[in-house]
């Protein structure tokens, strides 16, 4: 297939996934900030949301204060923020238009309808209820797009590149939340927060849609190190780093199979997956959770570059 087509499929999937992630962290933040101060402490949740979204520098170039109004506007609607939900859909649709022929009509329909629908949502929501509906709608649109890809696409390189986009973005998003919140996820004896953090942990899980999964996996009340375990090492959990890399390896291998050639991208993905498979949380805590996540983010970027070099350039 054309390199440009593969590139568009990859970024199309990434931007839809990113829009969903932004909607999730905004939703989680709304829940936390609705709680009385006594339950969550006086940290600025809006600031950490901007950091989790990975656009703190751009945000503070425009605004001096991270509060509900500014952050909501910047992450959801701003035209100036290249990764706002609005722009994610805008870019996703532009990519989709450029590769209409590689999409099934169901996929095109879902992304085009979402884009048309988005025009109907105003720039500033009239109420929190309306904004909450908007966030749900974003997640549903992403699910619809993902589902239509899964159910209608031919299983060939176009599909696999789009899957790779999903998992590369997802790994990046999960890692970013971990990076911002790592200090909340240390084992009890090192931990400086105490029970105040309970709602924070729930918030983290919610932002990766894993609150219910947590209880099914561990059958325990929320423990920070188990939250970290779920998000990093648990292969059953679709947004964990381990699961993302298992999927990245699998889809890259399928491409290599079709093309009859392995390359740096496959090797890089396999190195990271093997490391995740062989790690235990104790070891991660020993070397430092923060350092571990920083290394992971760097490795994930390296994979992105390898994919670009090998297929998209």
């Amino acid at each position, binding site marked *: 297939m*054309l*390199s*440009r087509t593969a590139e568009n499929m990859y970024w199309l999937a990434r931007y839809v996934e990113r829009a969903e992630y932004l909607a999730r962290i905004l939703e989680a933040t709304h829940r936390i900030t609705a709680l009385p101060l006594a339950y969550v402490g006086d940290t600025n949740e809006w600031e950490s949301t901007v950091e989790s979204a990975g656009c703190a520098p751009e945000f503070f170039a425009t605004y001096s204060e991270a509060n509900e109004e500014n952050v909501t506007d910047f992450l959801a609607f701003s035209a100036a923020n290249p990764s706002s939900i609005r722009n994610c859909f805008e870019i996703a649709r532009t990519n989709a238009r450029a590769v209409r022929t590689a999409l099934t009509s169901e996929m095109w329909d879902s992304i085009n309808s979402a884009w048309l629908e988005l025009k109907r949502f105003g720039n500033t929501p009239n109420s929190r209820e309306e904004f909450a509906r908007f966030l749900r709608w974003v997640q549903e649109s992403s699910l619809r797009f993902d589902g239509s890809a899964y159910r209608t696409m031919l299983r060939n390189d176009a599909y696999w590149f789009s899957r790779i986009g999903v998992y590369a973005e997802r790994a990046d998003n999960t890692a970013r939340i971990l990076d911002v919140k790592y200090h909340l996820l240390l084992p009890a004896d090192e931990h400086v927060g105490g029970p105040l953090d309970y709602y924070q942990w729930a918030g983290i899980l919610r932002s990766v849609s894993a609150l219910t999964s947590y209880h099914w996996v561990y059958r325990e009340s929320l423990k920070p190190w188990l939250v970290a375990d779920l998000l990093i090492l648990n292969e059953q959990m679709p947004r964990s780093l381990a699961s993302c890399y298992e999927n990245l390896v699998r889809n890259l291998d399928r491409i290599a199979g079709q093309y009859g050639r392995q390359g740096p991208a496959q090797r890089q993905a396999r190195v990271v997956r093997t490391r995740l498979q062989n790690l235990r949380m104790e070891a991660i805590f020993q070397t430092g959770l923060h350092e571990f996540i920083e290394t992971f983010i760097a490795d994930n970027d390296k994979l992105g570059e390898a994919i670009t070099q090998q297929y998209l350039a």
Partner: protein
Amino acid sequence: MRQAFDEMKGSDGLVRPAYSELAAWLGSVRPDELDHRRREAELLFRRIGITFAVYGEADAQERLIPFDVIPRVLSAAEWQTVSRGLEQRVRALNMYLHDIYGRREVLKAGIVPADLVFQNPVFRPEMNGQKVPHDIYVHIAGIDIVRVDADTFYVLEDNARTPSGVSYMLENREIMMRLFPELFFRHRIAPVENYPDELLATLKSVAPDRTASDPTVVLLTPGIYNSAYYEHSFLADKLGIELVEGRDLFVKDGFAYMRTTQGPQRVDVIYRRVDDDFLDPLAFRPDSMLGVAGLMSAYVAGNVTLANAVGTGIADDKAIYSYMPEILKFYLGEEPILKNVPTWRCREPEHLAYVLDHLEELVVKEVHGSGGYGMLIGPTADNAAVEAFRAKLKVKPTGFIAQPTLALSTCPTCVEAGVAPCHVDLRPFVLTGRDKIRIVPGGLTRVALKPGSLVVNSSQGGGTKDTWVLDR
């Protein structure tokens, strides 16, 4: 202006046989039902994303071409005549181009004035003496046809460069079959859905001789901001070929390649929807971002086929149009089956004098204009416009041709006040391959949606209709 010929009711008000079923249906269908279907059709178009852009309208980047749900019907006999005429005309166009870029017999014989060719900006000196694969220049032609009475079809314009509109022909039919399945049972309508297959067969047939048995065909688009981008992606999809932009292609050692996830892949035939000017920054406009550097060198080396060929503008130019009947006779020794609209060439003094005397009755067109821009429609223009045009005409008469205001035929059409006759034209698509000429029955009918209006161009508010050619 004469009373227009109505394709349903003829000139005597009696329903013509081809329309008998449709007229009965129109008589029985409730107005709100028709309106409901019309809105349903619009929704379908919007959803599948069939849009086009109008140059110069900032906000209208993606607009729908209005679709009229009442089909236009041609009888089998009518179509047979038109189809034979089209084939004849396109054969002549190809022979003429081969001659112009070769021995130039047509100029030597004095059929076409040489200055009209050599001083014409669409003439491509780069093509002089160049052989194109299988001597075919116009692989895809869109011939615009108008009708003025029961028997007379005129060719209004030849489109031999990158004619568009065929996606509407195909989508209009799909939508009609979804909206009115019953009508399709009551008629026997020749299908058009094989057009993509015919096009692919045509394109494959013209691959360079040296090509391996299964040539690689791609469609070259200027990109998503082009007004016809939807059509480009639509066709690439139906043909199962890659939709490439200039940056996806490169030329190395005289061959064209596309960049793929598995490395470079040879390209044999390029169905290009990029104008000559932008094809290759090394050969034509150096500022073109849409083209492929070196493509012309691969082309003249005979290693890649461009469809259509470079330089076909010299066949469909309005200045050449009026000579087409003589051109056709010159190459084929036959009378044209489809006539030209009578045309005054303002470059000739007697013609100019006549035109200046009759501006109020004539349509005057700029020789290098298109899309309905830069023309004067005498009967509907006000005095000031006529005088302004008269001044322009006197300054540069060679830039203009004039034609009588034709009473274009009308077809029943949904308008605000119900159903009314509106003027239509027809753009059939003619495919010329190495083996044969292929034409799917019908084409794109364009309709002027304001009753009385003669402008059918989609860029000026015209709409489209499905075109039915009856099977018997």
